[in-house]
C-alpha cells in the first residue's frame, strides 16, 4: 500500500515538526538569540545618541578600572572558598546518611537535611539577618554569656557572606555526595581495613576516588550558583559585599549602561563555563551525566 506508506511518512514528519517547534522556540527564542544579542551589545560602544560602533571599549574598561576586576577576582575567590567549605561540611553528613544511619533513619535524615531548601532563599537570609545583626539573637547571646561587653555587629563581614553562601549551597552538595557514597560497596572498605589500612588512607585511596563523580558534580553546581548569587551577598554583606552580580545589576538597571553590563555578564558567564568545563575535564565526566546527578 504505497498510499498508506506515504500517509504514515507524512504523519511521522508532522509529529516530528510539532514536537520540534516548542523546543526550538524555547532554545532559540530564550537562550541562543538573547545571548547573541548580549554578545553584540558587549562589543559595541555608543558614540552619539542612538549611534553605535563596534569596539572593545567595554572589555577594556573592565581591565583598566581596578574596582571592576578586583570585584570579579574577589567574587571568584570567595566562591571557590565557599565551595571548598561546603564540601568539607557536607561530606561527613553525607557519610553519616549513606554509611552509618540504617534504613528508615537514613532516609529520614536525608529528608530532614532537604527540608530547609524547600523554603525560599529570601526567608533563609532573613533568618540569618535576625540571628547576626547588631540587635540580633547571637550578639545578645554573646553579651548574656559575658563574652562581649557590647553587642557586636556580625553582619556585613566577608565571613558572614561565606556562612550564608555555604548554608544555601549545602543541599546541592549533600545530594550528589550521598548518591555516590551509597554506591560504594562496604566490603571494599572492610577489605582495605583487613589489609591494614586506617581511616585516612582508606579515605584517600578508596572512598574519594569512588566518590569523585559526586564530588565534582556537587562542586560544579555549588560554584556556579555561588558565583551567580545576588540575594545572599547583598543582604548579608551590605555595602561591603562587592559581589560581581551586583556590578552587573548596577550597570544594567541603575546606570542603564547596557553595553558595559553585557560585557560584565559575558565575563561572568565565561568564568562559570570555564570552571564547569575544568571540573568535567579533571574528573573525565560528561556534562549530561553530571546534570542528571544533581
Amino acid at each position: 500500500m504505497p498510499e498508506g506508506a506515504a500517509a504514515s511518512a507524512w504523519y511521522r514528519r508532522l509529529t516530528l515538526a510539532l514536537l520540534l517547534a516548542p523546543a526550538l522556540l524555547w532554545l532559540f527564542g530564550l537562550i541562543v538569540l538573547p545571548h547573541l544579542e548580549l554578545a553584540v551589545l558587549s562589543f559595541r560602544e555608543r558614540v552619539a545618541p542612538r549611534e553605535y560602533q563596534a569596539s572593545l571599549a567595554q572589555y577594556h574598561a573592565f581591565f583598566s578600572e581596578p574596582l571592576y576586576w578586583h570585584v570579579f577576582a574577589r567574587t571568584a575567590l570567595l566562591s571557590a572558598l565557599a565551595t571548598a567549605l561546603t564540601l568539607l561540611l557536607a561530606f561527613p553528613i553525607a557519610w553519616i546518611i549513606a554509611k552509618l544511619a540504617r534504613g528508615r533513619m537514613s532516609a529520614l535524615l536525608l529528608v530532614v537535611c532537604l527540608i530547609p531548601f524547600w523554603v525560599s532563599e529570601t526567608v533563609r537570609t532573613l533568618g540569618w539577618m535576625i540571628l547576626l545583626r547588631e540587635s540580633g539573637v547571637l550578639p545578645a547571646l554573646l553579651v548574656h554569656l559575658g563574652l562581649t561587653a557590647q553587642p557586636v555587629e556580625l553582619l556585613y563581614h566577608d565571613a558572614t557572606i561565606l556562612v550564608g553562601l555555604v548554608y544555601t549551597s549545602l543541599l546541592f552538595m549533600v545530594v550528589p555526595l550521598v548518591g555516590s557514597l551509597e554506591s560504594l560497596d562496604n566490603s571494599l572498605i572492610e577489605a582495605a581495613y583487613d589489609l591494614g589500612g586506617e581511616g585516612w588512607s582508606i579515605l584517600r585511596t578508596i572512598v574519594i576516588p569512588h566518590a569523585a563523580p559526586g564530588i565534582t558534580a556537587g562542586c560544579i553546581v555549588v560554584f556556579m550558583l555561588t558565583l551567580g548569587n545576588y540575594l545572599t551577598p547583598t543582604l548579608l554583606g551590605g555595602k561591603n559585599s562587592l559581589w560581581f552580580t551586583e556590578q552587573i545589576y548596577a550597570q544594567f538597571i541603575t546606570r542603564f549602561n547596557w553595553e558595559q553590563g553585557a560585557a560584565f555578564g559575558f565575563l561572568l558567564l565565561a568564568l562559570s563555563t570555564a570552571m564547569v568545563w575544568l571540573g568535567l575535564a579533571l574528573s573525565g565526566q560528561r556534562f549530561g551525566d553530571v546534570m542528571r546527578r544533581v
Partner: protein
Amino acid sequence: MIPSLPRPAWLRAATAFYAGAFLIFLFLPLAVVAVFAFNDAPYPAPPWHGFTLDWFLGNDPNGRLGLFHDAELLGSIWTSCLVALWVTALSVTVGTANAFLLERQKFPAKGVLSMLMLTPLVIPGVILGISILAFASRLADLCADLFGVHADFLRPGLPLVVLGQFAFIAAIATLTISARLKRFDRSLEEAALNLGASHAAVLTTITLPYLRPALAGSAAIAFLMSFENFNTTLMLVGADAPLTIMMYGRMREGATPVLNAVSLFLMSASAILALTLLRRRRNASD
C-alpha cells in the same frame, strides 16, 4: 568508618555531635524567623516582649499592619502565584513535548539539541535575565520602528518574568519527564495498537497515565522554583513585584515582623507541598 568495623567511643560521640550541630545549623535560621513572627515588638529582634498575633491579624493603618491586612504583600503573593501557574503550565507542556522528542524521535543534530537543552541550567540566573531583557527590548524597538506598534509585553513586566523563569525551569521539567519516559516499556503501547487502539487513545490511556508521577512531580518543582526565584526575576520585573522581590525591598529597609509572618506562611506552604509529594512517591513505590 562503617558500622561493621570497630569504631572507638570518641569517634561515635564525635559523629553524633556533628550530626546534631549540623541540624541546629540548618534549622536555627528558620526557627528564629518563625519565633519572631509572634513577638510583641516593632522589630524582629530580641528581647522577647510577649506573644502576639498582631503581625498576622493587626489592622491599624498607622501602627501594626498584619499580613492578612497588608494589601501590598497579599498582592505580591497573588502575583507570584499567577507567575508560577503560567511557568508551571508552560514548563510541563514543553517538557513533555521535549521528552517525546528526545526519547521517541530520530533526527539530525539530536545530540546537539539535547545538550543545548541542558545549558539553561549552567547559565547564572542574572545573566539569563539580562540577556532576555536585552533581546526583548531589541524586538520591542523593532516592532515600534517597523510597524509603529508598542509591544509593551516585551518591556520589563510579568510576561517577561514568566518567560525568563520558564527558560530554565523547562530544562528541569525536560530532565524529569524524559527520565521516566525512558523507563517505559514500549511493548504496552504496541499491544494496545495491535488490539486496535488509535494512537491518540494509546497516548491518553497508557502513556500519559504512566508519566503522571513525573508530570505531577515536575509541576510541583516548577511551581516552587518559580515562586522562589529571585535572580532572573530581579532583572525582568516591572511595576508589579512578586513576593521575593517585595520581601527583598523591605528587608533592605529594615522590616517589621510582618515579613516573619509571610515567611512562616511560606514555610507552611512548602512543608505541605513537600509532604504531599513524599507521600505520593511512597504510594507510587509501594
